[in-house]
């Protein structure tokens, strides 16, 4: 599995496969922390002094994400109707997941969320969270699952997910390849 932190996608150029043009640049990563779903991206114009683009890019409209660019099939993949109905309007209305505390099913504090982990393979979606323990000494990666309970500022990791927790991103990728089974709610 090809995994990246959501924040590493910010600033990448958005390139059209049909034209070879860099039509925009990724500004924000829009994430639904309650459904644990990657919604899409807001955009900037290209150029060091250029401003925001009104258009947005829904996660489902992305052809691929690589280390050097976000690829779209054609410029029409970018939606400039204001993102209505795609979950990309009225941003910031919900509580972001970064900073939430994660507890295991048996009540231990696994740490707080410091990054959202995305899979950029065949399907672009959020697959896990990077956690940092309270004393900042340990980092771990936990899988996202539809069963994650959310209450207040806490996320609870279901018991069956603990077997897939790892301390390094590569190991985590290998572990969850089997965890993300059918039945899990996928991005449209």
């Amino acid at each position, binding site marked *: 599995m090809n995994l990246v932190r959501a*924040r590493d996608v910010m600033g990448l150029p958005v390139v059209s496969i049909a034209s070879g043009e860099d039509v925009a640049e990724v500004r924000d*990563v*829009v994430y639904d922390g309650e459904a644990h*779903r990657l919604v899409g991206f807001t955009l900037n114009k290209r150029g*060091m002094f250029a401003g925001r683009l009104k258009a947005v890019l829904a996660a489902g409209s992305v052809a691929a994400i690589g280390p050097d660019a976000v690829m779209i099939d054609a410029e029409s993949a970018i939606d400039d109707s204001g993102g209505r109905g795609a979950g990309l309007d009225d941003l*910031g209305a919900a509580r972001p997941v970064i900073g939430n505390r994660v507890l295991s099913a048996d009540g231990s504090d696994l740490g707080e969320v410091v990054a959202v982990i995305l899979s950029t393979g065949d399907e672009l979606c959020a697959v896990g969270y990077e956690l940092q323990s309270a004393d900042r000494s340990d980092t771990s990666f936990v899988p996202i699952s539809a069963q994650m309970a959310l209450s207040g500022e806490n996320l609870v990791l279901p018991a069956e997910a603990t077997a897939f927790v790892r301390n390094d991103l590569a190991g985590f990728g290998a572990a969850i390849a089997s965890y993300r089974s059918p039945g899990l709610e996928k991005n449209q």
Partner: protein
Amino acid sequence: MSVLWWLVLVVVMIAVVAVVLFVVRRARRAGSVLASRVSDRGGQ
């Protein structure tokens, strides 16, 4: 000699303004992981 000092001052001021502009512009373009509104989960 005072002309030279003025020149240096002007150059430094231009440099400072340029750096400030650059930093401010970078900050304004900076993105973050944002929360989306949860209401319409089924709609697409």
